[in-house]
C-alpha cells in the first residue's frame, strides 16, 4: 500500500489547478477551511466553486480572488446573516461573479448523478417555481410510464473535491460519523479527491468497522493530516462550531478593507494551519471541546474463519 499522506501545501499545489471546478463539501459539519485558505494562499484563479452552502469558506475565497463562478443552493452565514463578500460581487449592475443556482436536493442529486455516472438525476422539486427559468440546466423530463413529468438536474463532476473527516488511513480509506452531508457523493463524482483528517489511523482501525467507511482510498489522491482544519466549523466528537468566529466575520466582511486585512493576517500571513492555530490560541481551541464524551459503543462483526 502506497502512502498518500501529503502536506496541505503539496496537495493543493499538485491537485488544484487554475480554472478547475472545486467542491469543498461538508454541510455545516467538517468544512475544510484549511484547504480553502491554502487555495487562497497559493493564489489559484478562475475557479468554479461548487458547494451546497458556500458558507464563510467561500466568502473568504471569493474575497481572496480565486473564483470565477459559484454553483450552490443556499448562500448565507448560517444563523448570522448574509455572505457579504459574495453579495458585493453578485448584487447590482456590476455583478461579476457568475452564479449557477439549485435547491439543496438539486445539488445533492447533481453530485449523485456525478457519482453514479448518470447523464441526469430526476427529482420532484422545481415545479411551478422560477428556478428552471433562472437556471436552464434544470429541465423537465417525462416519465416513461405515462405518469407525468419530473425535473432533472445534470451531473456535477468536480475536478477536485475536498472533504474533511475524523479519520483516515494512509491509503485514504476514510471514516466519518455525525452529519454526512453529501461528501460521499461529491467525492465519488470528482476526478481528484483530497481528504483532510483530524487523525491518521492504522488501516486496522478502518478494517475493524467497515460500515463506518464513507470513501475508499481507491478514489483518494492525497491525505492531509490537519487537526482543527475544519475550524471555525466543527468536527463531531472533536470540537464545536466557533460561533464567535461566524459572528465576527459579519462586520469584517461588510468592509472590503477589513476583509483584505483579515486575509492578509490570517491566510497570507501564516504559512499554514499550524501557524493559524497558534495565532488563534490554545485557549480558544480548548473552549470548543465537547463538554463530555458520548461514546457510540462497540458492535461485534465476528471472526469467521
Amino acid at each position, binding site marked *: 500500500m502506497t502512502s498518500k499522506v501529503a502536506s496541505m501545501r503539496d496537495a493543493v499545489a499538485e491537485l488544484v489547478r487554475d480554472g478547475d471546478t472545486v467542491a469543498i463539501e461538508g454541510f455545516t459539519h467538517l468544512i475544510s477551511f484549511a484547504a480553502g485558505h491554502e487555495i487562497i494562499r497559493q493564489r489559484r484563479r478562475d475557479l468554479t466553486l461548487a458547494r451546497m452552502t458556500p458558507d464563510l469558506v467561500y466568502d473568504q475565497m471569493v474575497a481572496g480572488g480565486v473564483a470565477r463562478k459559484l454553483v450552490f443552493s443556499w448562500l448565507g452565514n448560517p444563523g448570522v446573516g448574509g455572505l457579504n463578500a459574495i453579495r458585493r460581487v*453578485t448584487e447590482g449592475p456590476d455583478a461579476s461573479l457568475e452564479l449557477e443556482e*439549485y435547491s*439543496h436536493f438539486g445539488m445533492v442529486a447533481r453530485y449523485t448523478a456525478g457519482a453514479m455516472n448518470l447523464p441526469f438525476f430526476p427529482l420532484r422539486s422545481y415545479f411551478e*417555481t422560477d428556478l428552471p427559468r*433562472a437556471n436552464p440546466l434544470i429541465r423537465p423530463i417525462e416519465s416513461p410510464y405515462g405518469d407525468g413529468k419530473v425535473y432533472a438536474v445534470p451531473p456535477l463532476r468536480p475536478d477536485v473535491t475536498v472533504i474533511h473527516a475524523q479519520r483516515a488511513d494512509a491509503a485514504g480509506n476514510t471514516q466519518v460519523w455525525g452529519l*454526512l452531508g*453529501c461528501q460521499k457523493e461529491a467525492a465519488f463524482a470528482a476526478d481528484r479527491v483530497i481528504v483532510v483528517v483530524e487523525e491518521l489511523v492504522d488501516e486496522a482501525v478502518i478494517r475493524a468497522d467497515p460500515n463506518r467507511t464513507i470513501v475508499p482510498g481507491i478514489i483518494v489522491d492525497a491525505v492531509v493530516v490537519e487537526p482543527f482544519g475544519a475550524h471555525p466549523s466543527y468536527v463531531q466528537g472533536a470540537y464545536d462550531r466557533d460561533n464567535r468566529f461566524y459572528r465576527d466575520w459579519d462586520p469584517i466582511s461588510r468592509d472590503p478593507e477589513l476583509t483584505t486585512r483579515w486575509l492578509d493576517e490570517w491566510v497570507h500571513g501564516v504559512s499554514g494551519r499550524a501557524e493559524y492555530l497558534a495565532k488563534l490560541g490554545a485557549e480558544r481551541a480548548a473552549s470548543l471541546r465537547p463538554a463530555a464524551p458520548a461514546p457510540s459503543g462497540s458492535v461485534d462483526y465476528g471472526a469467521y474463519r
Partner: protein
Amino acid sequence: MSERPAAAFSRNEMMIVAAARELAGQRVCFVGVGLPNIAVNLAKRTVSPDLELVYEAGVFGAEPARLPLSIGDPTIVTGAIAVTSMFELFGYYLQRGLIDVGFLGAAQIDRYGNINTTVIGDYVHPKTRLPGSGGACEIAINARQVFVIMRQSARSFVDTIDFRTSPGNLGGAENAARIRREQGWLGSGPSVVVTDLGIYHFDESGEMRLDSLHPGATLDEVRATMGWEPRVAEELRTTPDPTAQELHLIREELDPEGMYTK
C-alpha cells in the same frame, strides 16, 4: 418558573408561542433555523411531546441538549435516532412524504403563500441577493403541510413576489390542488402563517385569511403591513396570551440570550 408576569411578553415571543401551539397533534416536523427552531422545540416541550424533529442536515429524531444554533449543530446529532446522508434525508424522508410539517420563512410572500427567498429585484442584476432555496423549494412541494413563520411588513407581505422560490397555492386553491394532484405532489401546500401580529390559515380560494389577532395587535396594523387587502375571518379571534410556562421555556431554556425573541 419565571417570576415575570405572564402578560409581559414581546410580539416575537407571542409569534413563537402561537406557532408552537399550531403543532399540536403533529408527528414529524422538518425544522428550520431561527424562529422555527425555537417554535418546534417549544412545541416538543408543551403541546407535542412526541414530535420527531427532522433537520435537513440529515438528522431524524433529534433530542438537542441545547437550542441548536444552526441546522447542523453537533447537539442535534448526539443522541438522535438516526443520522443519514442528505441524499437519503431529502429522498427517503422528505420526497417520500414522511414529513408532516415543514417550516418556511420568507423574504416575500403573497396572498397565496407563494414564497420568495432568492432575490429582490431582477434575477440577473438583483437589488438584494437573498440566500436562495436551500431546501425550501422541496419542502414546499413534498411536506404534507407547510407552516410559515415570519414578521409582517409591507416589504415582505407583497402583492407580487419578485421570484417564486417555493410554490404555495399558486394562483388559487383550485388551480393549486389540480396541479398538486396531476404532478403527484404529496404535499398539500401552506396551511398556516404565523406572524408577529396574528395567525392566518388559507380559505377555500387558497388565500390567506386572518383568523386570530395577537393581543395588542390591531387590524389597522395588519393592513399597514400587507400589500393587499387581507381577508379576515367572520369571527376574528384573539390569540390567547403566552402562558407562564411557555414564556419560562423560551426565556430560560430556548433563547436565554433573547437572540430571536427580544
